[in-house]
């Protein structure tokens, strides 16, 4: 059994590296230029998942994640909590509901989200397309990247969008947040509800 495992790993490992830029899956999402994504979002924030639980919402299995806002970019406040919902989740008896392209969230995850506001919370725009991951380097720098797994990208006309064109890989968080703020500043004043952008 161990031998089998080893062989599998050794053969899988090179493929992991080769394929990591081109992955996608069945959920079809709209991919728009970054400024448009920023302006389309009701809420934009960098934060951390502090709690997750699977819920059944109108017959759907959803993961309800509580996200603590660490940097408020748009229409939220630092240290507040966002109730975030994504499709899929773990059910009793090992049943799992998975939606391709939907981010799988767990406690401690750091994310940078472009959200659509719903009555009882927020959802990311375009599943993982609108919920970027943030990782910390060993030196403590925070870096943003976008998971492309499980997604098929199209533009507003339904034409395919190259994953290469929307790839975000290892962008420093500060740089990325500044870039998003810049996108927003071009369409109006800085969000007054965001104390991280305006000193009280």
């Amino acid at each position, binding site marked *: 059994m161990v031998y089998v495992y080893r062989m599998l790993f050794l053969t899988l490992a090179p493929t992991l590296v080769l394929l990591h830029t081109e992955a996608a899956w069945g959920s079809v999402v709209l991919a728009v230029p970054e400024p448009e994504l920023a302006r389309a979002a009701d809420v934009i924030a960098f934060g951390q998942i502090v709690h997750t639980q699977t819920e059944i919402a109108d017959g759907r299995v959803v993961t309800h994640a509580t996200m603590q806002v660490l940097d408020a970019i748009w229409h939220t406040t630092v240290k507040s909590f966002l109730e975030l919902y994504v499709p899929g989740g773990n059910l009793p008896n090992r049943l799992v509901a998975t939606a391709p392209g939907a981010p799988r969230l767990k406690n401690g995850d750091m994310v940078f989200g472009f959200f659509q506001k719903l009555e009882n919370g927020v959802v990311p725009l375009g599943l993982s397309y*609108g919920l970027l991951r943030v990782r910390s380097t060993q030196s403590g720098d925070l870096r943003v990247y976008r998971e492309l797994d499980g997604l098929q990208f199209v533009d507003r006309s339904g034409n395919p969008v190259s994953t290469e064109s929307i790839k975000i890989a290892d962008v420093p968080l500060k740089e990325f947040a500044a870039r998003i703020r810049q996108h927003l500043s071009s369409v109006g004043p800085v969000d007054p509800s965001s104390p991280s952008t305006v000193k009280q």
Partner: protein
Amino acid sequence: MRWVTCLVIFCCVTPALAQIDNSAIECADNGPTFFPRGDHWAMTPPAASNPIQIRHQKDGSSQALAIPISDLIKTINIAHTKWQTASCSPGTPNLKVEDGITSYSVNYPTRDRGDTYDGNKNLISSQNIIYFIQQAVVGGPDRFTVALTTNTMYPDTGFTITSDMEFNDYSFDWRAQYTESGTLHGPFGCSASSVTCYDIGSVALHEFGHFFGLNHVQCTDAVMYPQAASTAQFAGLTIHETAGICTLYPPRNAAVADRDRVEQCAQTSQCPNGQVCIKSGILSNPTTSADGWCTTPCSNTSQCPDGFVCGTISGQNTPSFCKPGVHNTGGATTGGGGGTGTTDNNGQSLDICSPCSAGTQCANGECISDNTGLQICTIACLPGGVGGGTTNDSGCPNNMECLGTSDPSVNFCWPINGDATSCAQSTGVGRALNELCFSNQGTTATDDDFFTPCGPDLVCVDFKPSCQSQVGACVLYCNQSLPCAAPNQQCCFGIDDNGGCVPPNAQSPHGGCYTIRHEGESCVTAEQSVCEQGSGCFFFGDATTAKCYSFCGAGDACDSSQQCHSYGDSCSNVYNLCCDKDTVSNTQCEPLKTVATYDVGVRCSKSSECNTNMCIQYNGENACSRICNAVTGYGCPGNVDVNGDGTADGGFTCRLIGDEGRCWPNAGPVAPLGHDNQCVAAPGGGCCSDNKCETTANLFYNGAWLPLAFATMRYRRRRIS
């Protein structure tokens, strides 16, 4: 070298679990390429009598769409029929899908999701729904998501229970056309020349590939090519999809009396000779439960048919069996990917050290545990290194070493000394319990505050603003339905202006766990910084000596051995505190010594001596302990003073003791204060003994742990003024 005791259930079979692998595989130079994802439907023979039934949401699809319902249903039915009628030479796939309206004239009066659950989230009944959603709802397509398919399955066996396909009908327009009996019907719906007009048939054909368990391939002519235009019209399956569906659902052998390979079964006796009925094994009656399917036992993948790999079920004493996977499937026949997008530019896993329960949760597929219960995602490594034999050459991140396993040829990166907290911190997962996560200096200068993430299970909670700053620290997360695990901790939904615990309220549904401290007890660490009502946390000069003091004055009297004395802080606030009569001065105040129980890490003989009511034995010694998360390593106090002698005592490691994680002091149990009779140097000068330290007389209020926490500050957020 310390050896990682690699549990067989994780280490040796994880890569072959029926995991949902979201990658695409390379296209073969010639011939078909397909990608079995690992999940699949198991048909019950005869398939014609037991089809996978899909349910079109009749009213949902006819309201907003300018497409007659019958034509819309036909368009979608044609999509899945193309898969079912693929030519497998000879025969067709052992697969049967029908829709309820067309086949059974079923009238669906409501637009419900079809699946029902009981109060414990157990799936009671399910239906496979085709749904054109007309408003944003939780769990459905958001306004950027064109179409979404959700499968519910047993991931360990790949047995699919139900699948729902949703089309976004509130943000996008749809069109349909189809050919029936040589006659073109349509086009219906929006104009193909207009923007946001998506072809239902094309999207559905692609989605049904996923519905049946196939993933993307990088063949530009394939239906399962991930970058196909949603406005295009697919004529039908290509050689890639045909090979894939015929391999996953091989044509039924008519000579088989009961169940054929990959068909549903309840017990092995139903399967062809030499095959087993493999189940998730979690149902109450595994002999008769119907969630099994017939497959071939194996010991390695070469014994499996094409399109199947050899794997087993984690935690189950079941034989290894052949399950759908990348094995002779065209391009990249020896690979299949995994964790795409979760590796950095060097292909390094991004979630090393993350807690896990299965390889599917890890970027590189390795969820490994050791004999202490630590179970994390990690990566393989070369113990000798590629450059001459040092750990740094092994490919492991800093603070990790390359350790061998029970198989000498397999090595994994592992946190040095098995310290999960160190592991997490080394990869920057977040601040540990009691560490600073937020600081606002209270000035108008830029770059004067920061906010940084806490580790798993922790939340950043603000403390009462001191006169100089507002700070927050990482404490264990809780809410009204998730109480604190430690019996002596209380869920506080904020800290009020007096430094007290805020009870649950509608405005603050999220909270942190605190040990409410009594007069005389240390309040240095963040989770111990809340003093009981009528008292506050103060220190004189040295923050590491902060304790809870009772307030006095205005009717609040002190104990007979105390006197009420006024002190001011650097912001001209005045506090009246009860002080020990024998030591009180303008620069010194000792609270009443009412410390009756020990903190975590202090030597004990029985649980009642501990404020956690938990005295445990480990390695022949006893110490007060508390529950922690053995997987993440989080939940223990940091390097704090546990016995009140003014010196830090070395911190804790969350160890698996018994069946649960327990905090154990790294330097061993610490003697209770006064029991060691040692005089140690105080950080602020002077000499401490028996809980009395002479220090300088600066009074601060509630923020005693601030200097400690600032020592670890590393991320500052610039403010825009």
